[in-house]
């Protein structure tokens, strides 16, 4: 997962329209995948730090809580129904959003396209 997140970080930096969409997004997002916990520090759209947890003292704006198999299916080139979107994972009961969901919604296109950045690898 750490490697995948590093790949996503690199692709984000190389995706000008996402950097533009994320220019007001300076937040920490928690990503929980199975038992692992990652803190993603975004600064003006750039992912400047990926810190592995667990941590009880790191504040974050919102969290995406899911499992590795669901994410793997989300990152397939043509995901099955429900696995094609993070809110689909929520609907399937394979993910949930915690924390300040309104901040997520205000930056929804940015965050959804960031999360999908690992999908290209499967296409290659």
């Amino acid at each position, binding site marked *: 997962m750490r490697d995948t997140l590093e790949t996503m970080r690199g692709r984000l930096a190389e995706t000008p329209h996402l950097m533009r969409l994320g220019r007001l997004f300076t937040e920490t997002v928690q990503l929980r995948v199975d038992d692992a916990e990652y803190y993603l520090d975004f600064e003006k759209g750039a992912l400047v730090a990926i810190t592995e947890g667990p941590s009880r003292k790191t504040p974050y704006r919102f969290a995406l809580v899911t499992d590795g198999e669901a994410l793997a299916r989300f990152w397939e080139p*043509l*995901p099955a*129904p*429900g696995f*094609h*979107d993070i*809110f689909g994972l*929520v609907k399937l009961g394979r993910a949930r959003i915690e924390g300040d969901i309104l901040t997520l919604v205000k930056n*929804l296109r940015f965050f959804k396209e960031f999360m999908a950045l690992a999908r290209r690898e499967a296409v290659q």
Partner: protein
Amino acid sequence: MTAIEPITGRYLTVTVEGAPRRIYFEEAGAGRPVLCLHTAGADTRQWRHLMNDAEVTASHRMIAFDMPWHGKSLPPEGFETQEYLLTTDAYIETILAVIDGLGLERPVLAGCSMGGRIALQLAALHPERFSGFIAIEASDFQPAWYDIDWFHRPDAHGGEMGAALVSANISPHAPDEERWNTLWMFMQSGPGVFRGDLSFYTRDDSLIARLGQIDCTRTPVHILVGAYDLTCTPEDAERTARAIPGATLTVMDELGHFPMSEHPQGFRPFFLDALARMRQPAEAA
């Protein structure tokens, strides 16, 4: 590239809720009238592919109109102090006023999402005005899993948030160009309009009790649902079809919530099949 499409657009003024509404409508083709209803937060452009389809328009007069507040139809006078909240009654009154205004004789009604919901309401309440119903991404009722107030607030762009949310309902099989054309309409939606449509869609459950009174022997009902639709899922559509005696249902494996707009080529055979299921009025029992 230069191309002039066969679609023509005009304006019609009708009275709804006691006041005039200037309605923009488009049409193409000749033959049996098919009145097409757009989804929440969008407009007639969703139907442009089918309206440009020579096989469809060879025997059908395809008509689509922008609901008041949407597309090129203006909101009513005084809108600047009104809260737009669509209701079943106003929606029905608008559709019937357009049918009367255009002099349509028992059209087929094709509606998607909230348009599919109101098509089923009309199948229950005013079947004599129509010759059949193609209810796309249509179901009895689903409460919102989101907060509709997200889409109308002074500190964020409701259209961009709405587009980002509804993108969850578009199939990954949809071509990128049409995915983004579909989302553009939501991005362009007027302030509070998507919210006002969703108020109708997510709060009015009056259809549930009316489904059993739909008589498919007089007016056929065919429901189409995309497997990638998270809002009106195949389970929602199947439950709805079961409650309507005689209704038929097709699940479209590679499509989402905006099939005529997000993936026109993928949707085309399903729509042609649906049209073929709509018996001419003389054939009806």
